[in-house]
């Protein structure tokens, strides 16, 4: 049976992890490679590097980071943030990442999804979607530029278009929930899962391990992404998986 994926996300700026991390025994607490390796040992199912500086002007830092991560990790690596072109895809994949996550560029140039899927395969094209409920409570709008700009595009229409263009996966972040730490946006996830047949990863709102159990019990999403929960060591990935297993949610474990 296919396991539900638990995916830690690292927010990276200039090659360093931004959020405070305090792993015991780590030499450099800001080193994404060391942290990602720790997650790998804890049985993370994949790791996401999100470069929040979101420019690829300093390509050498990013290339070096991905190359080092790919050589150290024994699980898949997704890289996102600031990807604008097929060249960016090529650079990230040839450095050793397994998937590339695109957000604003996909909205601005939807053709990029198809070009990337045709050239590199659907399995490596992740479309990250940030969405927020409309004020009149009728549906959701898609936002870009790190959540600062409302595109006015309807979420459900957009995710269906992404699937048609060749997205291999949707990484869905609820802006209403992001940062609140009071649980994933079950309603938004179910709305999206009803209209697409590609994997959907839940993001935004994870505050404790019970939230991860809840999202798998109340939706058919394929994975749950969390940052703070793991960064601040409130729970290890092993802890989350142990709780999931108690609730009969299929997860891959270190046994």
């Amino acid at each position, binding site marked *: 049976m296919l396991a539900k994926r638990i995916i830690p996300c690292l927010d990276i700026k200039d090659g360093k992890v931004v959020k405070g991390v305090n792993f015991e025994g780590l030499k450099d607490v800001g080193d994404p490679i060391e942290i990602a390796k720790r997650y790998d040992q804890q049985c993370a199912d994949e790791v996401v590097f999100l470069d929040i500086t979101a420019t690829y002007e300093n390509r050498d830092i990013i290339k070096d980071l991905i190359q080092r991560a790919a050589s150290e990790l024994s699980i898949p690596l997704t890289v996102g943030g600031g990807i604008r072109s097929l060249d960016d895809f090529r650079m990230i994949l040839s450095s050793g990442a397994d998937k590339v996550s695109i957000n604003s560029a996909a909205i601005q140039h939807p053709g990029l999804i198809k070009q990337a899927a045709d050239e590199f395969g*659907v399995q490596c094209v992740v479309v990250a979607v940030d969405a927020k409920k409309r004020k009149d409570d009728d549906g959701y709008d898609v936002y870009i530029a790190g959540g600062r700009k409302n595109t006015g595009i309807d979420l459900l229409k957009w995710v269906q278009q992404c699937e048609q263009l060749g997205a291999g996966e949707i990484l869905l972040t609820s802006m209403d929930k992001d940062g609140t730490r009071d649980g994933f946006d079950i309603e938004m996830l179910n709305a999206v899962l009803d209209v697409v047949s590609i994997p959907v990863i839940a993001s935004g709102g994870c505050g404790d391990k019970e939230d991860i159990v809840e999202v798998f019990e109340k939706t058919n999403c394929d994975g749950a992404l969390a940052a703070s929960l793991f960064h601040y060591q409130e729970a290890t990935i092993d802890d989350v998986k142990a709780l999931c297993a108690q609730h009969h949610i299929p997860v*891959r474990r270190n046994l």
Partner: protein
Amino acid sequence: MIVIVDYNVGNLMSVQNAFLRIGVEAVVSRDIEVIRQAKGIVLPGVGTFPVAMENLIKYQLIDVLQERKEAGIPILGICLGMQILFEKGYEVQETQGLRFLKGEVKLMNVSEKIPHMGWNELMFVKKHPLIQNIKEGDYVYFVHSYMAFPSDDELVAYCEYGDQKITAIVAKDHVMGCQFHPEKSGAIGQKILLAFKEMVQ
């Protein structure tokens, strides 16, 4: 020496890195003489069946692979590299494979999401040295839309996806293949690569 055949299908570095993590120096090459000296051959592969076969032809690698197979050198296909070990594939267009194993590769017929992406449990059908270090129920990482339909006697392990049994490991003598990516499958993947290394003498 293990040679990872470079026929220009996806990222070969990840397979090389995975061998390095278990202390094995594997060489990436498409040089016929280098492949001829290999004690073990790995055929990786991400992409499509016809492109993979076209590239093997373009780099004139079919004959040397056939020759090494006949010489009894262990050969491990990974993902698309496993699929092309079969007689025929139907991805994009009907294409002849290497025909080292009996069977065909077709789009999976499942009620579940395609691609089959993520971690799934191995179920064993028969014993094989490649799985000697792991146990039934261990999880490995899959990403694929097409699957192999092998002959019963060459199926070593499968996984369950919806109501379908997905071919996971196949082998005939020293020719073997994994549909999943051992190089991305954590500690279990490393044990599989280690088992391959142990078969290479």
